[in-house]
């Protein structure tokens, strides 16, 4: 039977973390390992994790510095791979998985692969917000023939990219494509990675696998929302996406991104000083072109 390593990346969110971990450990198809990556939290997360450490299936990875979501996922996925897992199932520290979320993901991926007669590089869940509606930030992009499996009676949608909130990657995808780009630190790391592995075929969103993303506000990423306090995240976003569009797509995609960014900032009436900072990050993205690390085969 295939083995699964669940990977949860956390940073200073100890209250939600307990619920996240308990949901993972209560799965109907329980993962063989639960790898928790503590991104050098300073809020007492370590004490919370100490309670889980007595569980043989729980592996705590304590990083010496905050490497962002990108670095955390890269480290956690690498550890899952080193443990010998056939799949890694990754999520944030504010994602509560329904008790059959993993079981449905595994089954959904298997069904989709059978129907498509090919290996598919990932399966992601349907991500809801706390009110039961769709979580806007976590909507995957779909392929042109997204309804192909629905037409065959499956509750699965073909997708091109998704966010790192309950995604199941088979081991071979890591072997072939490596790990997420840790240098991205935060934002666009998930999109870059899922677009990268989609070179091997589409991903699949398994609608029967449901998780709840406990975000404060249910709103997608929009450059019109930039302000001084959230600026730091948008800076990473602008640099990373500019880098991706230029180095992994083409100059036209890069220019389209610049136009979209400018339109978003103008629409949100973002102050000029912040706009200038973001465009400096876009220029940084021209030079910024990190290469993925490959996971190590240990077991």
């Amino acid at each position: 039977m295939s083995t699964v390593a669940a990977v949860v990346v956390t940073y200073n969110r100890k209250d939600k973390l307990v619920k996240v971990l308990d949901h993972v450990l209560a799965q109907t198809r329980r993962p063989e390992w639960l790898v928790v990556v503590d991104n050098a939290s300073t809020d007492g997360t370590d004490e919370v994790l100490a309670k889980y450490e007595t569980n043989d299936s729980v592996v705590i990875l304590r990083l010496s510095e905050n490497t962002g979501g990108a670095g955390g996922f890269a480290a956690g996925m690498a550890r899952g791979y080193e443990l010998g897992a056939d799949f890694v199932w990754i999520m944030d520290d504010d994602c509560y998985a329904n008790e059959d979320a993993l079981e449905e993901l595994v089954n959904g991926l298997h069904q989709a692969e059978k129907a498509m007669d090919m290996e598919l590089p990932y399966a992601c869940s349907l991500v809801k917000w706390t009110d039961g509606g769709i979580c806007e930030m976590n909507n995957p992009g779909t392929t042109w023939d997204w309804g192909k499996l629905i037409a065959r009676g499956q509750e699965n949608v073909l997708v091109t990219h998704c966010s790192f909130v309950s995604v199941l990657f088979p081991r071979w995808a890591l072997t072939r494509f490596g790990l997420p780009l840790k240098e991205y630190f935060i934002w666009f790391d998930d999109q870059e990675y899922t677009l990268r592995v989609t070179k091997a075929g589409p991903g699949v969103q398994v609608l029967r696998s449901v998780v709840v993303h406990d975000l404060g506000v249910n709103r997608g990423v929009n450059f019109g929302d930039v302000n001084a306090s959230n600026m730091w995240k948008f800076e990473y976003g602008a640099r990373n996406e500019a880098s991706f569009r230029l180095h992994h797509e083409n100059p036209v995609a890069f220019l389209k991104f610049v136009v979209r960014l400018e339109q978003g900032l103008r629409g949100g009436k973002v102050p000029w000083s912040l706009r200038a900072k973001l465009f400096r990050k876009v220029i940084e993205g021209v030079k910024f072109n990190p290469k993925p690390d490959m996971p190590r085969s240990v077991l």
Partner: protein
Amino acid sequence: MPFEVLDESCVGLVENDGLLDDRERRLVVGAANFHALAGPGQTFRLTVLRGPRGTMPSLTDDQTRRIEWEDDREVVGSLVFRSSVHTTADAGSQDKLVDLAVDLGGEPEVASAYHQLNGVLGKVRRSVRFFAPVQFDVLRQYRTDMTERRYRRHDVPRKAPVRISRGASANPHGDTPAILFGLHWLELGGAERFALETIQLAKEAGFLPIVVVDRPSTHPWITRPELDGAVVVPLSHPISPDQESAFLNGVLSAYDVRGIHLHHSSWLVQRLPWIKSVRPEIPVIDSLHILEWRTGGFVDISVRMTNVIDVHHVISPMLRDYLIGRQGLAPERVKLATLANLTTGGIDQSGPVSKDHDGPFTVAFVGRFTQQKRPYLFLQLAAELKSSAPGPVKFIVHGDGELSSEVHGLIARLGLSDVLELRTPARPVADTLADADALVISSDNEGLTLTSFEATAAGIPVVSTDVGSQASLIAEDLLCSRHPYPFIKTAAQRIRTMMISPAQRKTWLDEQAAKAEAFAKLPDARTWIRDTYQGWLP
């Protein structure tokens, strides 16, 4: 044997009074095996020649048909034998005597590839190699990076499968159950050591091993006891196409071949499509040991021929991941079964022990003095540690090989004579491990080093280059880049840490032991091979 001796002179097959030593005698038998199998029912006269030191045997190639030889070949024996392989040809055509001249080559010679470089370019490379081995290695590693990057971009093409499930029968086959083995050569090596083990397992299961080796070599291991009773055929090339098919037909008709087991044999693997077209029911296992440095080597040959191989046996998780993840082979056709306890026998495995630190901290290198093992890099590390260690330090270099003179020269040049002890392979490795506080593996290419198992069993932390599957056995912090300067910097820093912090040394050792323990739980190759062979019995 597939032949009967009618007469002989000085070979020593009938009476032990020949001019040949055991290795040479077995090479003669190997040549006779080939010709007897390729010429069923025929009578042969072998004129046995011996060449000067360092020349390779010529036993099965087209040259053996010529009754004229080089001036420096001496005649050391003559053998007349008749093939006992069954033939359907009429007796008349078998009456004539076939004359062959086989050359046993000379005594085995140990020589570095660098010593064999010719011309001005060869001289320049030899000089640079000698005067600046580490700097030269920097260039080599960059070349490896570039070659690997270029190589890995391409997918390995696949040989089309054999679609038939039954070959049209030409000859009945013999009754003796046999396994056909394909080996690279019969020389010291990890793959060869395991291959000999499997040959022994085949004998114990009741099979006759037929062992075909295909690379030019003096085959020093042809005298190994595991090969007693086996039909050994050391090929030399080029062999004419009709002789190749005749030989394989002879094997398939003289014996009841129940399986084929390959151990890095490019000649046999390339003939598999034909064998599968004649006898599709014969199962084929290919054992792989190492993801070849720079190019895919045997692993990619195996991928190319995957449609005519039933099971790819790999000894490391890295190879499994490469075959399944990178090359897309079906997981059920890739079997991971490891050699975890290959050479740990005889060493106390009671667990990690703290070393007594009364004397100097001892850092050891155990391995052949070859380009792959890079002993010069260890010596450079030793020089670095000698000048920067926080306390007294001592080094043991245990081995021998083609770079021996370079090792001796560097020890003097780097001023290590007073702190470095050289040990020859005559001394047990266990002695060195018992004396060492840390072991260093400086290779630029490895599969899964056997000395790492031994060191773990002896309670020694290992600092190693992060190559091949070393990550399966070595503590994460103790894995270093294979590039020379980063390697020296990291390895020296880790060893200095071990010297000032026994607790950290113990932490790394515990991580190494935990990895070894987890690794040991993976399926065992010997058990899997034994069970597989049992399943091949009639």
